[in-house]
Structures are given as C-alpha cells and as structure tokens.
C-alpha cells in the first residue's frame, strides 16, 4: 500500500509543477530588475509550498472528508473577523496577521468551499437532485458574499466558481443549468449597477482601451503592446523593452505573463500553455481515477479551478478579459496563493496514491 511509502506523490504531476516553478524563477529575475533578493524570497516560498504539498499528500481522502465541515466553519469565522477588522480600518482588509505569518482567509476558502460542496453532494446518491443542488448553492453563496464585501470581486468569483464546478460535476441536470443561465442573463443589467465604479470602468475599457490610454486603458494597452511586440520568437530573455523600461505595471505579480510573452514570444507562450494543459489534464485524469465520489468531485474542481486561474490571468493580460487581481498560478510573485494552490495539488497527490485500482 501507498501509505507505506514515505513520499506519496504522482511524479508526472510533480514534473509539471516543478517545470512551472523553474520558469517562474527565470521570468521573475527578468521582471524584477535582476533583483536576487526577490528571487530568494520567491524560492523560499516555493520550497515552503512544496513542503505543504508533500505534507498534505500524506493525508488520506477519508480524513479530509471528516475534517471538511470544521475547515469550512473555521474559514467562515475568519472571513467575518477580517471583515470586522476591515470595517474598523475603513478599507479593504484581507489579511489575518498572526505575527509570524500573514494569510488571507479567502485563500483558504478556495479549498474549503469545494470540499464543503463535495461533502454536501455525496450525502445523497449522484447525480445530484434539486434539494442537494440548492443546499450546494447556499454553501457557495455565504463565503462568496463575505469576500465580495471585502471587497475582492475577483477572488469571490474564483471561490464561487470552484464550488459551482463541484455541483456541475455532481451531475446537476442540464435543465437546472439552462434555467440558471437564463436567470443570470436576466440579472446582468441589475448587476451592472451593483458593482463598484472602478470595476465597471475595467469592463468598459476592455472594449475600448484607447478611449483612455493613460488612465483606465493603460494596463491593457501596455500589456497588449508587450505581448504583441514579442512576436513569434520573442525579444529574448532580459531584453523585453516594455518590461525592462517599466511600461508594464505590476510586472512581477499579476502581469508577469506580459513579461514572459514579450521575451519568449508566441512559441514560448505556446509551450507554457502546453505545460499548464498537461497539469490540468493530469489532474482531471487523477480525479477520474479517484476511489470515491467525494475525492473525485474535489479533485475535479481543483483541476478546473487551476485552469480557470490560468485562463483568467492570461485573458486579462492579453486584453480579452477585464482586469481582476488574479495571479498567474505558480509563476507570479506572491506567497499565499501559491501555498493554497500547492495544498490543492497535495490533495490530488493523495487521491492518486489512494486511487481506485491501487494495489
């Protein structure tokens, strides 16, 4: 049995993740003005994230199932606390500071929400019927609403997405899906008036960034120029003029793909996307092979969420999606999101070690 092994990991998935980490180092070196301090901090985080992954990979899926409600409840409580602190501090408050470490409860919810929805779904036989589906929606809606209040629309959408994917994978009937789609379409104009001004502006500039090239359109235009001028082969590592000359804002974090794409061109971007596709594909395969419905649903959701991150980030950098604060998974500079992502991959590794036909 796998639990006799010291490391319970899927080497194929590991190779994909490791490749992305290495790419991250190279791009960050270029994006961060050849600052080795930045690189050192990122490698420490990466090492930590890999340790978290290995640790979680040793937890059995049954154990996770048992912990799910508590984890979800703890996450909700922390979101409420953070919101309270934010109200006092009169601004967006997303962090909990434990002195030695700061983290965003919203990041934890990216795992806790799909876990909880999967937990609800497997109480009844699949495909899920209407009452279970409604219960699932409630489980998704509460944390999503709390995160929107922070306000962090981007993360709220991702959290909601990860939960909804579970419901979809649980076999929610196409009728319900059709009805929901209709409601969303009808509610869209209403939503337009509910979102913040800056959010509305971001969506508007998406359609015509040149209407305000120095203001709202600046990010979109400059990053499109960076990507476009990279051409087929790119300008070469450390030679992206857009990136190196400070045209691209937040080029170590959310806009790091612009740097990558300018310096490595279409060929480089294609290869990077293939690595991402491989990671997603492998994750879906692990999900299908998993030994019970809970694990399957959870793993499937993690794979899809990861893919959504990649799509939203690159979509935003290439100007087909509005600008939301979503980092490029495993490549952008930043700590919390990487740890929660790698924790998710730890669950996948565990699922693989305890799969259906495991001997």
């Amino acid at each position: 049995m796998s639990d006799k092994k010291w490391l319970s990991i899927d080497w194929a998935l590991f190779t994909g993740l490791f490749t992305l980490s290495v790419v991250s180092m190279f791009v960050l070196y270029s994006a961060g003005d050849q600052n080795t301090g930045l690189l050192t901090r990122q490698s420490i985080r990466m090492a930590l994230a890999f340790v978290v992954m290995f640790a979680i990979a040793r937890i059995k899926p049954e154990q996770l199932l048992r912990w799910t409600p508590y984890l979800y409840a703890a996450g909700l409580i922390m979101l409420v606390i953070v919101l309270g602190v934010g109200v006092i501090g009169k601004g967006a408050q997303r962090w909990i500071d434990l002195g030695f470490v700061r983290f965003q409860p919203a990041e934890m919810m990216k795992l806790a929400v799909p876990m909880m929805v999967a937990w609800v779904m497997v109480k009844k036989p699949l495909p899920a019927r209407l009452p279970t589906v409604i219960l699932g929606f409630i489980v998704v809606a509460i944390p999503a609403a709390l995160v929107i209040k922070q306000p962090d629309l981007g993360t709220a959408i991702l959290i909601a997405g990860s939960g909804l994917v579970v419901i979809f994978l649980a076999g929610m009937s196409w009728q319900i899906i059709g009805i929901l789609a209709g409601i969303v379409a009808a509610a869209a104009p209403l939503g337009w008036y509910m979102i913040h001004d800056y959010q509305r502006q971001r969506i508007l500039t998406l359609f015509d960034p040149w209407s305000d090239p120095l203001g709202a359109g600046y990010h979109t235009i400059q990053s499109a120029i960076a990507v476009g001028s990279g051409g087929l082969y790119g300008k070469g590592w450390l030679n992206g003029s857009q990136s190196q000359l400070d045209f691209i804002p937040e080029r170590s974090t959310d806009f790091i793909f612009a740097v990558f794409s300018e310096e490595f061109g279409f060929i480089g971007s294609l290869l990077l996307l293939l690595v991402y596709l491989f990671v997603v594909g492998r994750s879906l395969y692990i999900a299908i092979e998993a030994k019970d419905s809970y694990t399957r649903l959870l793993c499937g959701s993690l794979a899809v969420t990861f893919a959504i991150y990649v799509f939203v980030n690159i979509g935003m950098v290439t100007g087909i999606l509005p600008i939301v604060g979503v980092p490029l998974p495993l490549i952008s500079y930043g700590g919390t999101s990487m740890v929660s992502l790698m924790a998710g991959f730890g669950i996948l590794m565990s699922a693989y070690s305890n799969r259906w036909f495991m001997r």
Partner: protein
Amino acid sequence: MADFEIKDVFRETRVFTSRSIVIGILMLVLMGILLTRLFYLQVIEYDRYSTLSKKNRISVVPRSPVRGLIFDRNGVPLAKNIPSYTLEVVPDQVSDMDNLLDEIGQLVKLSEYDLKLFRRDVKRHARFDTIILRSQLTDQEAARFAVNRYRFEGVELRARLERNYPMNESAAHVVGYVGRISSRDLEKIDKSLYRGLNFLGKTGIESYYEDVLRGEIGFDQIETNAHGREVRTISSTPSVPGKNIYLTIDSQLQLIAEQALGDYRGAIVAIKPDTGEILAFASTPSFDPNAFVYGISSADYSALRDSLDTPLLNRALRGRYAPGSTIKPFMGMLGLKAGISTDKKTFCPGYYTLNKGGHRFRCWKHSGHGAMDLHDAVVQSCDVYFYDLAHHLGIDEMHDSLSLFGFGSKTGIDLSGESAALMPSRQWKRGARDLPWYPGETVIAGIGQGFVLATPLQLASATATLANKGQRMKPHLLLAEEDPLTAEKKLNSPVVLSSEEWNSDDLEFVKQAMVDVTDSARGTARRIGAGSPYKIAAKTGTAQVIGIKQNERYIESEVSIRHRDHALFIAYAPAENPQIAVAVIAENGGHGGSTAGPMAKKVMDYYLLGKKPEKKKKPS
C-alpha cells in the same frame, strides 16, 4: 436522514466521467481562445505592436541632475559645467547600424576612437539605452546634423552639460575628474541612482564627494510622436541638482605652490594649523583632467601612466619619502619628554659608533660639529646628536611618540588612496619582514632615514600639530557644501584627531630652535629668514635616495640626477601665532635649505603678506 438511498457506485462514476469530458472539452476551447488571441497579437498584429513598442507613445525618460560645482575657498570655480552638443543613439531604433554610422560620418567627423568607444558601449548597454556617439560637436556640425536629422531614426542631437576644469592642470590631483561609467564602475554603483547618467567622479574630490555632487535623478513621462521624438511632457518628477562644494584650497596659493615647484617633481602641502584646512595641495608634474572627461585615448593614457615622472601620482597624498632631518624637531620633543636636559651636550666628531671600531654613522658635516646641545643640534642639523638620542630612546618609544604627530598612520583626509607611509617598530619588522630589529636601524631612524617614511601630507600635518601645541587637527579639503537652490551653506566643522598635552616649555624650546634655523647665523635656512617681516619656525631636510658606502663621499655633481638627494623643508609661520604650516618635497632637489626652503617661503609670503613671487608671470 430518513430517506436512505443506496449509492450506485458505477452510476456515480459514469456521471462524473461524462461531466469531466464536458469540462475537458471546455478547457480545450478556452485554451484555443487564448492561443488564438496570442497568435493574433504576436503573429498577425506583430508589426503594429512592434512599432508601438519601439515608439511607445508614452515613455518614461530619466532627467539627469546638474552636477554640483566645485569652488575654492574664495569662490573661484575649479570644476564647472558647460553646455556642449552630443550625438546620441538608441541602438534598438536603428535598423542598419553600419550604414547609419557611414552616413553620419559624412556630416560629422567621427574618429576611429569615437567609433571604438561607441561600439564598446553598445555592447555593454541594453539595446534601448541611449549611447553617446560623439561629444563636443562644433556649432557647424550641430547645424549640419540638425538639418539632416529626419534621415536618422534613433539618433538625437542633445545639448548636454559637460564637465570642465577651468584651472586645467592646477589642483588636478585634488579636484580629480569625472569619466564615463565603465563596466567596472557598474559593478560597484547602485544603478537606479545613475539612470540616464553617463558620468561619475573617478578620482579626487569628484570621486570622494560623488554622492554629494551627483544630485538625484528626475523622471519625465513624455509623449512621443511616431518618430520617437518628444511631443509633450505628461508628468514630471524634477531632478534635484547636486550640491556645490567649496574647498579649503586657495587656488592662487595653489598656483603659487605649483609654480614654486617649477620643473621639480615634488609636492607642497599647506595647512591651517588650528583647523586642519588644507590651503594648498600641490603635486608636480600634473595632468589636464579635461582630457579624461570624454575618455582619454589609450595612447595618451599610456603616455601619462608610463611616464617616469608619474604625473598621475598624487605625491602629496601617496608619495612615501624618507623625512630626513625634518624629523629632528619631533625627535627633540621626544627627547625633552623623556627628560633629557637642554644643557646636555653630545660631541660630534663627524661620525657616530655604537661600539668602538664598529660601523661609522656619518654626520653630514664630515669635519664634525663639536659639542652640541639640543638647540644647536636642531639649528645646525647635527646628525650625531640625533643618532645618540635615538639610540637612547629606542625604536619602540620613537614609534609610539612620533605617532602622536601622525607619523605612520593615515591622516583621514577626504581623498581616497591615502598612504599611511611607515613608522617602524620591532613588532612591525617581525611581522612584515620576519627579522629582528638591529640597533643600527634605530640610529638612522633618528635622522629620518632607514625604514622611516612619511607622505608630504603627514609631514605638513605633523608640522601643523607642532604649531598647534600638540593638538592634531584632521586635515580636510571640504570647507562647505552649498545647496544650489537655496544657496544655503553647510560648513564642515574641524575635527580633533588627538590632543597630546606637551610641556609648554618644551614646545617653546623646540619652537625657538626652529626659529633659529631661519633666524640665526648658523641656521641651515638662514637665507630664508633674512629680511622676513614675520618669524618662521622651520627645519630643513635632505634625504638620501641611494645608499652611500662606508668611507665613500657623496659628491652631488657626480651622481645622476635621479639619484640625487631629495630636498625637504617644513615650516610654520608666524612663529608666535601660526597661521600656516607647510611641507615641501622636491625630488632630487639636493639640499633642503637651498631648494625646498625658498619654495615654502613663496607660499608663506603669499598667504601671510599677499605677496606674489616676482619673476613669475601673474596668473590672471
């Protein structure tokens, strides 16, 4: 839950698998969308974005600050900025570099050297950096290029401020010069402080006070037209000009000191004893710092570097010379401190031996001085008296007490590369040479020969310390910093290095002996004292360059010029109220009294009386 239902594992698996396939297809579609978008941006629209990127309509341009000026203590400029036209190229915007250089070469003279420097800089910098192709264009060249400028994309004609040193060779070692930032400089500096700057201080004050003089870079966000030329400024963070620096140097006094040295290789340092302000810091021969600003050609540079006269060497700061007899007044202070009576006489037969029939240490006066007390030994510079004194004090006592005057340690002047020279001790010789100390070495150290070495700066500082009654002030060149925007001046306050309480009677005694060097019938520098309206406390020195064998006599006319003795002279004046302390070294100048003494006199005459030397032309 009441309504318990049986789970159909295979059905659940089937549901999940079919939904996974839907998801999988969706993933591929999304990936297709991204790839299509990337293909559109990077392949189909490549030309458009490439153009946009090269001529990005909005760019951030660093605005270089104006470098601070350097003045002497009276406000005479020693380093200033003058406008000059330069041709600058952004390689990234040039399609055919060779062709471009050819065509520019037909309008503007481009020397082999310009091209070599340019190609080297192109390699060193990023493709989108601005690189200087030619500097100091004449008005005609600038006009000719301006008319044809539309033909040259990526080439700019700029009016820049260029560093200029109006005093040329004078004080070049002190002021130093700026030069192009080299690849070695790049490893040391914080690049963010130098965005858009091409120069930095390389030597002297320009280098030592680089951080003060440089100022802070500003940034303009500018909009450019399709040819990459500025249309308007959108926002701007102004640069902060560097601070102006006032030096303690008096440029007239400096000129007089340099002219006094004439064709001799040597150095003159003049210090204000009560503050440590350096009034003159001359080192000859010198060089023209203006040649270094835009990069000196390697032939010219090797000529300077390999010259036997070492014009690039700052002798005042780094030259290590045997102090010779100029060490005697300090030895005298040591003797008095050790309790030697001023009446004690030593007989000088023309030589000194440690034991009967042993090695004969010669006095410069071969016939001998006869019976000498300390006063006469200083005035007439009797070697035998000081051989004996040194032998009684011992080298370690000499090392410790001479250190109180600054011998053997760096003064800490605000110039880099200072030499500590050498004040030997037993411990030093064991460590450095792994040899025991021999008594004979103490004997010759007593007259400033042997291992003892001092820089002209150290000698001047020691003399100033003597003049200032033992309080040693840190020699410094910075008088004040001035903010060019507010004209606010920040004075540099004097620093006390050490304060040794010498017996005032002893100080008075040595001072009187030094005055009698210039002001008595037997004084070795009586020619200088003759007719002087102020009293000068001084000591002459003559330092051997080559060893003289036992029983051989040194005959000046018979040794080649570069083997002749160095002439030394230290002095302070007026003796009762010292305003200036001077040290002079004229390499191969022969006798201190006849060669170096008059040089010091010229410096003191100008400083104390405002009298300029007669024969020389008046500098305008």
